[in-house]
Each structure stands twice: as C-alpha cells, then as structure tokens.
C-alpha cells in the first residue's frame, strides 16, 4: 500500500515563492487563489526576532475532516493517500472549506482573470469551467502521480511524475515520496531528522511533514 507524503525542510526554505509560482503555472489557478503558498512569519521581540517561511497547501490527511463532512462524496481519499475532489459531484456547499484546519480549500463563484473580465490567451486556453462554484485545492499534481502508474516512474524521483512545487524548489526543501517505502527519499530523510505535522492534536494525520532539526 502506497502513502504519498511530502516533507518540507523549514531550515532550507528561503521564502522565494517559486513553488507558489510553479503551482499556479502547473494548475492554472485563478487570480487570488494559491493552492501552494509560503507564509512569512515574524516572531519574537526586538532584538530577538526570527523569520520563518512556511509552505502551506492541502495536507492530504490520512483522516481528512473534509472527506467526512462532504455531503456528496465529491471529496474522497484515494488508496495512495491523496485527497481528491470530483468537480462533477461537488455542489460548492463549502462544508469542506470549514472543516479543513489548514485553510487549504477555496471556492471561486465567478470567473476572474488577471486583467479584468477578458482572459489573456493563456488564461482562455486553460480555463476550466468545471472549477467554478466548486471546492478546489492542491492535488499533489495528481495527473503526474497517475502518470507514474502508467510509465513505471517513481514520484519524488522522476521529475515528470513529481508535483510541480517539489520540482521547482530551489533549495531542495521540498521532497515527495511514498512513506510506506522505507527506501524512499522521504522515508530516509524523515528517519534522519526531527519533524512534526501541523495540528496533529486534531487527529487529521496530515501527509506533510515539517523538518526543523537533525536527529
């Protein structure tokens, strides 16, 4: 059984937002919607202050609250650990948006473009009417993961079948792979480091691990 997860080394993230841009490029999300975003967190009191960059997106939880509350079964958890949305079933009730403690989901009720009501050629070419009025979020670039099943390539190793954000990360902070495989890059990295998952106390069992120090 596979369980695809992501690890993000907070020691390495420099907050360049390249992953955010790569995600928008790969998934053609509308203006104002970022499936992958990097938060810039300032903590402490002068002169003892810190700045931390925190990449956030759907955590693809093993126990996803969004899936439980969804009245339509549009949100499902796949056997490989990915949490997916069927845009054909979703009614846009936003119950999943409320259920997600990671603020990962959004609903766009009307088409918006970067420069007003008229889409640029690239926006028109990639506009997906199925995503209007329904819930959407990071998919872990599910089309690439599905491609791996056909080609035999390994997500997290072969760029063609790895999420766009991971491919784009300039510092190598983001890694992707099968945590059930002890030899995967993610499994080995997590074995060597100290890490946590956000809001674990809520019982969601998120699939994104944040590394903060070596073991």
């Amino acid at each position: 059984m596979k369980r695809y997860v992501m690890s993000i080394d907070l020691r390495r993230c420099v907050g360049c937002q390249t992953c955010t841009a790569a995600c928008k490029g790969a998934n053609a999300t509308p203006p104002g919607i970022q499936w992958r975003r990097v938060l810039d967190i300032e903590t402490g009191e002068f002169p003892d202050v810190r700045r931390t960059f925190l990449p956030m997106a759907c955590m693809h939880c093993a126990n996803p609250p969004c899936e439980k509350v969804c009245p339509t079964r549009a949100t499902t958890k796949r056997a490989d650990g990915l949490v997916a949305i069927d845009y054909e079933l979703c009614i846009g009730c936003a119950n999943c948006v409320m259920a997600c403690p990671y603020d990962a989901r959004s609903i766009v009720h009307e088409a918006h473009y970067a420069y007003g009501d008229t889409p640029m050629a690239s926006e028109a070419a990639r506009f997906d009417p199925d995503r209007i009025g329904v819930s959407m979020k990071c998919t872990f670039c599910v089309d690439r993961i599905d491609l791996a099943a056909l080609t035999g390539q390994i997500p997290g190793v072969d760029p063609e079948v790895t999420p766009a954000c991971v491919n784009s990360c300039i510092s190598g902070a983001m890694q992707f792979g099968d945590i059930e495989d002890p030899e995967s890059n993610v499994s080995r990295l997590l074995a060597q480091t100290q890490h946590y998952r956000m809001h674990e106390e809520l019982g969601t069992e998120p699939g994104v691990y944040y590394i903060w120090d070596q073991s």
Partner: protein
Amino acid sequence: MKKPLLRASNLASPKQQHNWDWRAASNFIAGGAGGGLLLWTSMVNASADATRMAILLGLILIGSGLTCVWFEIGRPWRALNVYRHFATSWMTREAVVAVAVFAAGGLAFLTGTFALVLLAGILGLAFLYSQARILAANKGIPAWRHPRSISLMIATGLAEGAGFLVCVLSLSSATVGFPVLAGLIALIVVRAFAWNTYLGALVADGAPDATLKVLTGIAPRLLVVGHILPAFAVAGAMAGMPGRAGVSFAAGILVVAGGWFLKFTLVRRAAFTQGLALPHLPVRGRGTAGPATKPGWKAMPGGKAG
C-alpha cells in the same frame, strides 16, 4: 480611505471565514428555531388552530433556512447530490431529516392527527441536532468544533422554539398556560447555562483571540436581552400582570431575538479559522531551534514533535 497596514505576520493568524455568509447563517438561525418549535408544539396540548399555526410556522422557518442555503451553494442545480453521503456527513443527514420533517409536518398540518404532530416534533428535534452536529464537525473553526457548541445550539434552538410557541399561543385565542410559561423560563435558564458553559470551556481550552474577543463582547447584551428581560417578562405574565398575552408575546420574541443574535454571531462574526502552529521554529545554521508559535492564540496547547 486609509488602508490598514498589511503585515506579513497577519497572514499567519486566524482569519474570519467568509464562505458561509448570512445565507448559511440563516439556515442555522431559522431552521434551529423551526425544529424547536415543532418539538414543543407536539408536547403542548394546544387548540387545533394554534397547533396548525405553529406547525406551519415551524415548516416555514425550516424551509426558508434551507432556501437561503440553496441560494448560497456554488452549484445549486446539483443540490440533490447532498443525499450521497449519509454514512458520515451531517449535512446529508440534515437534508434527509428535512424531507421527513416536511412530510410529517405537512400531513400533521393537514390532518391534525396527534401521532403525526408527535412525529413532526421528534423529527424537528432531529433536524436541530443535525444542525448542531454540522457546526461541530467543522474542525477548521475552533469556535464551532468545541463539543459544547452542540449543547449550546440545541439549547438555543429549543428556547427559540418555545419562544415562538408562546408567541403563537399569545396570538391565537388560546391562553398561554402556566406550564408553558414555566417551561419557557426553564429553557431560558438552560440556554444561559449552556452559553456560559460553552464560553468558559472555550476560554479554558483555547480559541483564536479574535473569536474570544467577539464572543465575550456579546455576553453582556445576550445576558440582558436574551435572558434577563424575557425571564422577567415571563415571570410577570405568570404573576398575572395586566396584558398577559402581550407580555408573553414580548417574552417569546426576546427569547428568539437573543438566540438569533447568538447564532449569527457564532456562525459569522466569531468564526475564525484555526490559523497555523509551529511547535518548533527551525534551526538555522549553528543556532538553536526557536520557541513554539501560534499566531493569534494566547496559548499553544498540543502539538507533537516528531
């Protein structure tokens, strides 16, 4: 107009939810009161006309709430898909119960049969319970997911239902009996207790600062308008104050108004998201890990390091 300074750190703090606006709030506001009204209608031995009027009002309240939600969802013409996940979704269960409520309530309105009135009342309670569970299932909103929000939503729904019933009885030829007024006072006390217990537990267990600020801010007004004033009015009516019907009606309206004010505040104004939490700040270079941070929260309970 001067724009507020946008600080990077603010983006990490809990944010007020905007996906469920007044239309979604209306479902909880009107639907909960309608469910409570159906229940108490089935419990009180009122005249046939008053019973019919109360049932009709209960169904209108539930129906108007659901209609508001229909206008809010992104794909209203697919609304029937809501029935696809009975196993775990309280929204599906609410929708199923709603159909049964309208069937039983409609027949009860037409026939006046006691068994159907009773069935409609039980289903009204089930509808109210489903709504309470919908809110509590939303882990992304700390003010809703607290277990005590369930008892609060049920308590206020029952109190509002009783308030409406007193209004209906005041307007009809039937007099508002002593047991009904005593029951209304008891429900006011129960709601006040549920509210205080909920707020106290929320403060103790932790919630976004903004949520606590909003909820503690309404507490005095809720106490006066939603609890003390109607309790005095009901007591006056019970004591035989002149204009008993009018006083009872005013008490019922105040109980309803207090509950609706509470629910609107809970669903809209106090509904802030979880935000983020970092149990450890990352080690940079040869430095040490920084302390935990949870922007927008006073304390940081939970959080396990790997």
